């Protein structure tokens, strides 16, 4: 089936099989390997991307479902060498080690911070229940997201 989709500002037109997952479409068809694939059943959160402004599991959507949609992946966060505030905070606070879970957490956090102005650490922890990280113990991830939310709060 033909799919026309905007990914990170570029329009792609591809022919795909209906059974192709969005995660595999991004990685294999478009070569955007920043989106990681972990469990492929919606538990680990590594494949989280933003479709039409909302964070979703790309392993739980078919590529044919994003025909006509706008998709944002982790590759879209930094502006050249300028990191996104969340990426900088993760870097400064040692919020990643192996980095496998990081793209998914970043994309979920981007959406989460748009929805919640000043989340508590408990709310951030609850959001992170949908993301498995086996390296950090989460404390530094919670701290980074919390810091960015407060900085964004003071800007307004």
């Amino acid at each position: 089936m033909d799919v026309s989709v905007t990914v990170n500002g570029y329009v792609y037109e591809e022919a795909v099989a209906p059974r192709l997952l969005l995660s595999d479409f991004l990685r294999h068809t478009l070569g955007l390997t920043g989106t990681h694939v972990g469990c492929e059943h919606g538990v680990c959160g590594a494949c989280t991307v933003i479709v039409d402004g909302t964070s979703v599991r790309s392993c739980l959507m078919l590529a044919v479902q994003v025909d006509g949609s706008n998709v944002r992946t982790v590759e879209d966060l930094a502006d050249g060498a300028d990191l996104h505030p969340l990426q900088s905070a993760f870097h400064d606070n040692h919020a990643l080690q192996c980095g496998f879970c990081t793209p998914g957490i970043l994309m979920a956090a981007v959406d989460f911070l748009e929805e919640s102005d000043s989340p508590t650490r408990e709310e951030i922890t609850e959001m992170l229940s949908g993301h498995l990280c086996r390296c950090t113990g989460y404390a530094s991830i919670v701290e980074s997201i919390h810091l960015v939310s407060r900085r964004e709060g003071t800007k307004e």
Partner: protein
Amino acid sequence: MKPPVVDYARANSVAEAVDLLGRYGDESKVLAGGQSLIPMLNMRFAFPTMLIDINHIKETSSVEVHEDVVVIGATVRQSGAQLSREVQSHVPLLAQALPHVGHFVTRNRGTIGGSVVHADARGEVPLVLATLGGQVVVVSASGRRTIEAADLFVTHFTTSIADDELLVETRWPAPGRSWGYAFREFSLRHGDYALGMVACSVHREGGVVQEASVALGAVADRPVVLKEVAASLVGKPLNEPAAVAAGKVVTESVNPSSDLHASDRYRRHLAGLLTKRALLAAWADSGGDLS
């Protein structure tokens, strides 16, 4: 962990979806949020030949408040219902339960209708529908019919909705003031399947319980509505001894099975404890005095 070979059709209206369902019947699967169906495809638990995508149907995507019922369209997202002012003020029990459904990201995609038809015995949304005595509306080529929650959930992952019928509406009773609600569940990790869950509603009048509903999830193959427990609360204030007694009856009457995560004995104890806590919370929510 990839879906099997399957065809895909995007339905843009209820009529289109019903037409496709009529043509493909039990060979097809309706694809709503896909947060349970796509894992089942990835794990090869399901082998439909046709997926009917209903995500672009506009008619089923709104929340409407009627006099004593709130109608939530089948494709309203779990996150949309959770954040909906209408749901928060008129169906607070559902609003309380929704944060326990999956995770922030899966709720962005998962739908209310999908949770109902998936009929997971550990599902929060089916439990709340059963507790409130709600209804669903289904449509097929031969017309439209309403199914009571009590007649809907048959067993694990099975409802009384026929292969050619499409769920279009879920209907949630909203009786208004002097009702109190509470939802309680316990799981090993937030967003995981619960080891026990209880939902209850209490109608308080003149300092006593006028009417109540108590239902348990994750203890059987479908939501279990305990009418005798609810009836035993009527005519009295819902104080600590009354809640403890109700919890004891629940512990003795439910029959969950053991698994890797917890023994049947532990689950029975948990069901009683959660019932006690939920009843006291619902009574307080109705404006009842806890002293």
